[in-house]
């Protein structure tokens, strides 16, 4: 004799497997007796989690705003740029943080977010070799939302697999130049830790941009331990919180 609940399992599996779910929870389940003594299982509550990467989720025709609920405005903007050409994953860790850290690579993302803790504004992964325009757009969005409060702009990743350092640094640098032109300059310190194709070309390009903007910086290559670079960025942030920011503002001729 097969329990009526078990009879439903294949259908539940179909729902889970073919509609882009990763988890499905029915809790509680009550058995309702019918006329002829048969029991019908009834789900009194239904919860599920969706796989963002599965287009099958769209089969259910759920309105977009349901998913927007736990995304901040910033996250939504960046998500719109989400294509398979580069990750652009972001998550706001602390909206009052002071280190803006565009991070490259899932592993780097883990480490950096862990070590920066509450000082970090976002947790991000912009790796996957995004093209110049996309990198610039993502950077512009980040700056627009968070640059005013930022002490340290921290560009960090390991030795990139195929992300072109020149293209991505050019995108971030040009976006910064345009942001300054539009919104005025911000007292910043830029710390970079990176490796990968066209590394020195990218560093040179970014250095030129920062020099022309009067922004101080220190760049590390892949031969410095990434965790040490993260600690360095934190120490710069602490220095800025205790007077360094004012010094930079004076040097950059920014009114208090």
């Amino acid at each position, binding site marked *: 004799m097969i329990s009526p609940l078990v009879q439903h399992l294949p259908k539940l599996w179909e729902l889970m497997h073919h509609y*882009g779910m*990763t*988890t499905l929870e029915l809790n509680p389940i009550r058995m309702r007796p019918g006329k002829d003594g048969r029991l019908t299982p009834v789900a009194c509550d239904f919860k599920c989690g969706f*796989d*963002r*990467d*599965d287009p*099958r989720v769209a089969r259910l025709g759920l309105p977009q705003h349901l998913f927007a609920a*736990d995304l901040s405005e910033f996250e939504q903007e960046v998500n719109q740029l989400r294509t*398979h050409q580069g*990750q652009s*994953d972001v*998550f706001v860790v602390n909206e009052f943080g002071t280190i803006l850290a565009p991070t490259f*690579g*899932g*592993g*780097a993302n*883990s*480490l950096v977010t*862990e070590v920066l*803790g509450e000082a970090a504004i976002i*947790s*991000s992964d912009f790796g*996957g070799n995004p093209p110049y325009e996309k990198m610039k757009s993502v950077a512009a969005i980040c700056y627009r939302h968070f640059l005013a409060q930022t002490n340290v702009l921290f560009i960090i990743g*390991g*030795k*990139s*697999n*195929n992300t072109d350092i020149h293209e991505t640094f050019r995108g971030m640098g*040009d976006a910064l130049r345009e942001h300054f032109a539009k919104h005025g300059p911000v007292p910043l310190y830029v710390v970079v830790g990176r490796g*990968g*194709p066209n*590394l*020195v070309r990218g*560093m*040179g390009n970014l*250095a*030129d941009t*920062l*020099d*022309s903007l009067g922004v*101080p*910086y*220190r*760049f590390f*290559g*892949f*031969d*410095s*331990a*990434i*965790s*040490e*670079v993260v600690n*360095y960025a934190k*120490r*710069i942030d602490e*220095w800025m919180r205790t007077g360094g920011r004012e*010094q930079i503002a004076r*040097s950059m001729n920014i009114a208090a």
Partner: protein
Amino acid sequence: MRQKAISGLPYFLGVDRLNAVASPEDRVCVLNILGGESRTVTPVSHAFSGGNVVFGTSPGRSGQVLKTPAGSIPVFNTVLEGIRAGHGFNTGVVYLPPSGVRDGVAELIRVNPELKKIVIITEKIAVHDAREIRAMAQANGIDIIGGNCLGVADSWNKVRIGGALGGDHPEESLVKGSVAVFSNSGGFTTTIAQYLTTAGWGTTTLISSGKDVYIQYAARDFALAFAKDDRSKAGVLYVEPGGYYEKDIDWQKPVVACVVGRWKAKLTRAVGHAGAMAGSGDSAEDKERWFMEAFDVDGIYTSETPHVSAKGALVTNIADIPAALTAVMALNDIQPDFAPRGSLSLKPWIANDQGLQLPPDLAQPVVTAPAPYDAQIAALSDQIGAVIARQSMKDTSGASQMDPKTQVTSVHGHRVLDLALQPLEAMFALPLVHELADAHDRAMLDVAVAAEVNLIGDPILLAADAARDAGNSPNTVMSVAAAITGPKRVERALACARALIALFAQSGLRDGRDESFDLSKIEVDDQTRALFLATPDEADDPRPEAMLAAIEARGGKSVFLRFLLGFGERLSRDAILAAITTTIAWGPLARKRISRLTAETLPWYMRLYGVMVGATIPGRHHQPGSLWGIPREERFSRWTMADICCLAMTGKKPDPTEALYVQILIGLLISNGPGSITAQGAKGAVSADGPQTPDRVQINKAMAGFLTHSGYSHGGNGFEGMAFLLDQFRDKGLKDPTDPNHGLDLTGMARDFALAYKRDKATAKELGTEVRALPGVHHPIFKGKPENFDPRERFIAQFMEERGEYNIFHHFYRELVRQLYDVGASRYVFCVNVDAIIAALLLAVLWKDYQAGRMTDANLETAAFTIFLFGRMIGAAAEIDDHLNRGRNMDTRTPASGCKHVV
């Protein structure tokens, strides 16, 4: 089943030893081989492995090849096509987009009976598809590694399959040794391999497992192959939260595990690693516990708390991996594979603190990067000066910007209001070096410009006088002088500047005034040296000696001058001018605030400034050795630019207060942003020459562009305000406009005028005409409130108040706006605008001469226009230099579609 399964497991697993993961016998087929990522990564993998990719697929591109340093790889439409062409393989690599991965895997399995394993690089595969991939692979006995992984590599076999493990130079990081690496993070697989070499450990097999929800080849699978691999004496794992893969594993050999991701407990969505989100029981802390139990240790290994056992150690920071491994292996009596290579300490490659003083532990000095990066970085600094990208500069400026709320313009970040309070020389250099000159640089600038002002014997004088006699306005007269100061007249000075910059570019000089700089390392050939020397024709020109004496008198210091004087021969004045301008430009150039082009063209601007000021002085006052009666030595050694500008307008040296007001006036007039007609004229002239070929841009012609685009309405209207004031004060017996005890009833005067104005307004209204606008009051932006203020006028007024300075004309204006309101001639109290204060200040400077009959109305008008030109030439220089550096040829043109026609 394609392979024999390892017995005793509840699922299929084929790979039973690590050296079979990436073996030299493996033959590889890459799906979507011509895609963006594969195109750059596959050639490196293929070459590193000695050529293990037999073919790839890319629909529609059959017949093409992927070039690699180890030969070309053929491309086919489908896997079957490649097999039929005779290319057998046992390993698939998938670079397809997420939606195509499952079908790609199915194709590989379906058509290739020899398939043993597949590496899936693609990220963001749907969990649904990952399930189906596993089902197919399990049913057919195929091993899958990935998805979202960076492939596998073997340092002993020198093989790399799939992704970019080791980056674009895998031989740098994949060093033969005794450690097997298994990592959830692709990038960190390489990083860990590098870190291990700093403790003297090399690697055997490296596997990037990916961190999707389903890890197809997981820690337990790795543990089996690792245990059977004789080459590997130890293992290193990098693990993130999510899944039970690492629980209850019997490692059999020493292992260091790095678990990262405690913070992910806060996540509600995955970031980067889709699977690195825990439910309950598989968080980072849970995994830490699993490993600590497996290794029998009480805590996490750090350098302060080295919890370690012979079985292994747990770390949470990848930088601790090397030391932890060495400690574990020491307990097993196993030494590192080789001597440590490099270290993980902080090694800044490139830095610039922009002159700031950071604490010593933060101001870490730059070190030489490892080869080949060191040579590349050195090449970067061969290029001196800022590098600026070009764009259309129509109605766009990088030099000036007007704040729409306050109407105050800034030039290179400095408000003109603040500039007005700076000595004139500081303002003259600003547009070009983007920084305010300090006292020392200003002294040098005074000499540089002073040497150009006296035009005796120069055809410019004849031309300027002719233009003046023809009834032209002052700007037209000045433009004649600018037009003549063409390329040939500055050729040698520019060549000298270029030569100096080239000589010192690589020298490490940071400050143009460095007295201790060792000049012996600067080598100059005879041809270059000759550039700087005075020719026999110049034997009678007294200016080189006068300039040098003046510089000495003013305490000027210049490395470049010291260098040139070291030749022991007579220098030309072009050489001295170039030395001065290069001295002032050197700091900003070395700090990349200005471009090399700007530094090289500076002498042209200085010559133009001098010539243009000189041209405003009528020809008869230019005599050998004296200008308007003032001897050369005095002007060169003691006069400032403000003094010279005053001389040009009035024929005499001003007292300090007059000089201050001239300085303020000039400062206020420097710029009104790129939209003003003068700026448009200058920019258009640059654009028409073509800034993309900077050698052809005629900077003097661009100055003429600014000059011709000023006129009686724009720039020449300063006299209107003065004329108005003259009407009010002409017969009032005013002797000293700066004396507060003037005895005049300003309120009464203002009231009388206001009443008369009110009557005129009423009459005009009846007749249907318009009454004239009053100069100096009201403004289209600063209006509407009960009492209005022009922030620029307020700024100057406050400055004067703080100094206890009085100006009767300004006082009158303040009374006037009050009275206009009181009598009902205006609806609210107008602001006193900046034109009023300009008129008031200038008239006060010129009043005594006017009363004494030494200046006529026409002279006053000329003076008002001239002071505008002196100020605006600075703004024009800024726009010219800016457009020259940033603009594109013909970019100021308006297309026909932007133009209109009227009949």
